């Protein structure tokens, strides 16, 4: 049925590989779909979605997105250059944490070739002891052009005490059409490296973020009122569009929406167990954390308290360092994804439950009998190389399922802060009953709300 009214709204949840779209009319669900980005891009997926729904116009579109997480595994920085106080070009990279697994420092966020010194200094008291000269700025512009830098982060020591040099550089570079990013000072975050990391992340993510925005808005152009764009949700539950300093924060936008709404729905204190297609995590909607332990070190990024569970839907099954068939530390994601979806080469946790995925939108369509057979062969091969071999695939499969559930159970029991656990997400109907059986003392409650259900809730309207 075509819905001609303009008070229809669109809620989108964009994960690393899946998009979930939900149309609402007066908070009632009109149409829902989830698709793999590999199958349909944002634009074509949305057009198909609207065609299926029969809806011709919407009044607004709100997006909760974790898409940028996808590019974390690639080297960030790209065309982002950094200008920093002379003598301190190596400071952020010296502060990078050590990856204990390989006993190596984590690579810096920006390539050292794109870090440029600025002969300036502001003291801790805010006195400019060395002013940046016009000649130096002209030289910097030349160097930045040579390196084809587009986005520039300005990281000067003590600039928050007196931003004179920072402003002078910023104005000059803006005139030259560079996109400028300056760190936001926050009295709760007095560590310059953490601020600088956040600023580079926002700058580095900008390109991808803007591409996603452009494609989305292109896809929504015919449905939204003229000139209106989709709004994104930040970790503070605020809507944003072009604000470049909020891009990183979009990672936790969905958590804030779920937390805000679910804690209103329940009178008891609750934990939220999110069992989504791409992520398993436990949230405490009552609490906030200030620090994000990013792969590049700590970043001040306030967000709802969340704990990623020790196993994720795409955690690889492998032979552990001890020679046993077990789970790795890494989640592989959906590119290519679990083996039962046809393209994956490495068995994952979700492959263990492939027979229960036929009703899950987004992955059911990709089910491949050939992939399942490949998974079973792979499991057999892995079992043969393990130091504690099991008899057959028939015994390996339940063994690994039990192990996975046991690990998840222990992790949840250790991290849950409340006895009432609200389970949500596409895989919640599959896993929640199993977890409930194993931890009878915790009250698991399954909510059929999807990731997008709350983006247009009544209580939430004033926040966005």
């Amino acid at each position, binding site marked *: 049925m075509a819905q001609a009214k303009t008070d229809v709204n669109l809620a989108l949840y964009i994960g690393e590989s899946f998009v979930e779209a939900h149309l609402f009319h007066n908070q009632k669900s009109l149409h829902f779909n989830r698709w793999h980005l590999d199958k349909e891009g944002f634009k074509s997926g949305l057009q198909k979605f609207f065609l299926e729904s029969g809806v011709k116009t919407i009044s607004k579109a709100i997006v909760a997105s974790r898409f940028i997480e996808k590019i974390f595994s690639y080297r960030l920085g790209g065309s982002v250059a950094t200008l920093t106080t*002379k*003598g*301190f070009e*190596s*400071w952020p*990279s*010296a*502060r990078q*944490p*050590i990856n*204990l697994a390989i*006993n*190596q*420092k984590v690579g810096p966020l920006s390539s050292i070739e794109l870090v440029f010194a600025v002969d300036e200094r502001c*003291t*801790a008291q805010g006195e400019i002891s060395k002013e940046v000269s016009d000649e130096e700025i002209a030289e910097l512009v030349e160097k930045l052009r040579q390196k084809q830098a587009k986005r520039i982060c300005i990281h000067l*020591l*003590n600039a928050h005490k007196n931003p004179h040099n920072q402003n002078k550089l910023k104005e000059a570079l803006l005139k030259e059409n560079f996109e400028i990013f300056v760190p936001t000072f926050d009295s709760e975050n*007095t*560590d*310059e*490296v953490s601020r600088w990391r956040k600023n580079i992340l926002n700058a580095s993510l900008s390109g991808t973020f803007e591409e996603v925005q452009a494609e989305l808005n292109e896809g929504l152009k015919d449905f939204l009122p003229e000139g209106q764009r989709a709004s994104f949700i930040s970790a503070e539950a605020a809507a944003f569009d072009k604000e470049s300093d909020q891009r990183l924060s979009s990672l936790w936008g969905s958590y804030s929406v779920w937390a805000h709404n679910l804690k209103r729905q329940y009178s008891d204190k609750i934990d939220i167990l999110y069992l989504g297609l791409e992520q398993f995590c436990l949230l405490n909607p009552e609490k906030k954390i200030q620090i994000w332990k990013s792969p590049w*070190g*700590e970043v001040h990024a306030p967000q709802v308290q969340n704990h990623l569970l*020790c196993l994720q839907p795409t955690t690889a099954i492998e032979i*552990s*360092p*001890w020679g*046993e*068939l*077990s789970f790795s530390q890494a989640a592989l994601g959906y590119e290519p994804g679990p083996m039962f979806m046809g393209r994956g080469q490495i068995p994952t946790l979700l492959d263990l439950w492939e027979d229960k995925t036929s009703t899950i939108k987004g992955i059911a369509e990709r089910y491949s009998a050939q992939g399942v057979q490949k998974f079973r062969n792979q499991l057999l091969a892995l079992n043969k190389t393990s130091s*504690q071999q099991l008899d057959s695939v028939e015994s390996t499969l339940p063994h690994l399922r039990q*192990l996975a559930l*046991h*690990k998840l*159970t*222990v*992790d949840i*029991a*250790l991290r*849950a802060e409340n006895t009432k656990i609200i389970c949500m997400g596409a895989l919640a109907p599959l896993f929640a009953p199993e977890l409930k059986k*194993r*931890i*009878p*003392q*915790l009250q698991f409650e399954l909510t059929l709300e999807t990731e997008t259900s709350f983006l247009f809730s009544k209580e939430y309207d004033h926040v966005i």
Partner: protein
Amino acid sequence: MLSSWIHEFAELFLRTEKCAALVSSDGDIIHAKSDLAFEVTGFKNIVDTSLKYIALLPGEILITNDPYGGGSFLHRYAFLVPLTQAEGSQPGLLLCVRREFTPGLNISDKLDYEGLRIPPTPIFQNGQLITPIVEAMSMHPLCPQGFNLWLQKIVSDLNRLYAKWNQTEKNCKPQISAMELKKFLAFSRRFTTERILEKAQGEARHEVRLDSHEVLKLHLEINNGLIRADFSGTSAGIKNHLPDLATFGACYEALASFYNLNCLKNSGSFSVLQVTKPLSCFLNAKYPAPTYQGFQIGVAAVRMAMTLALHQIVKSTQAILTETDLKMEMSFPGGARWFSSWSAQSFNEDLSLERIESQYPIQFIRLEKNIDKAHLELEFKTLAACQIRWLSDFTKYPLKAPRGSKAPEPTLIETMSDKGEWTSLLSQGNTDLAPGTSLRINLWGLFA
């Protein structure tokens, strides 16, 4: 269940702790971790010495920081909490957590002048903090300010952790039987031995001379995947005194790093190492010898001797990283005191130049990294008169490395003389600095 499940379970339980261990009531370390890796083997002794005289019930808490009872620096306090009692074939389990409070550079000629030493002492029993004991500790002249409040916070953290354990035990029944534990420790030993057997076996001798005139002699032997470190011939302590448990810990740390064994730290994996040291040598110190310098300099010297010997036996050409952190304390008029710890490999996550400049009369001049030379240099100046105390390295002279590899340069502090020349300071000491004096810290063994 998998053999490694015990390890994974312990890892999950201790995930939020920097330095902690799960220990059986028989004294077997099931899993241990620490930001100062030499400490991991000492947890066993904390349990042994504490439970020898004190009976603790599950949920009760005991504190100790005695360096001669499995402890470490006096500012690192260990807390012991029994989680379960032994029952039938199931050993009791204990949680041992170590937390740091107001670290400083406290060097003296007697341990009891270096700080407040707490022998194993119960502080939480029958659901209550034992206030008279905590107050008595707080009134000690060397007790750091704010200790009482800090202790209360730790007790509340540990109570939460204990409650979490109870909840998990009730819900998930992660029972560990004596048989399973024995199997797991045997499995860990086998795993460690196999890792060692992957590389060459043999023996090597190494001698390290410390600037404080102690001489460390090591005879290292690797045979059948087992390692014997013999420190016979090592001299008595002059300034450096290291309790034997820390010597063992430092040796294990070096071999764990060399063979990449950091994933498994338990009594099974520790059992591949045997350490012998003469009673009178500085690696077998006895109370009341001071230990701060030993934990800093002595541990670094042991690790370096082990690393050099391991490289020699295995004929490794891998770069040898420095084993020494630099500790420095600057005291300014008015009582401000800046204590800092520097390592080329890892900067403290909290270290902020802006924060230091706003809190102390310090101005940073530059920081330079040279990855090819594995060198990191930091230059700063003091804007006010101050006194500086430091511990940099066990020697300010380069070490002799095995053929084919290069030992790192020593960690150094330099000051700029009136003539504008850099002069290196001794490896340890103290001096007064005039306002405007520039200092340079040289750290080696930088990770790429």
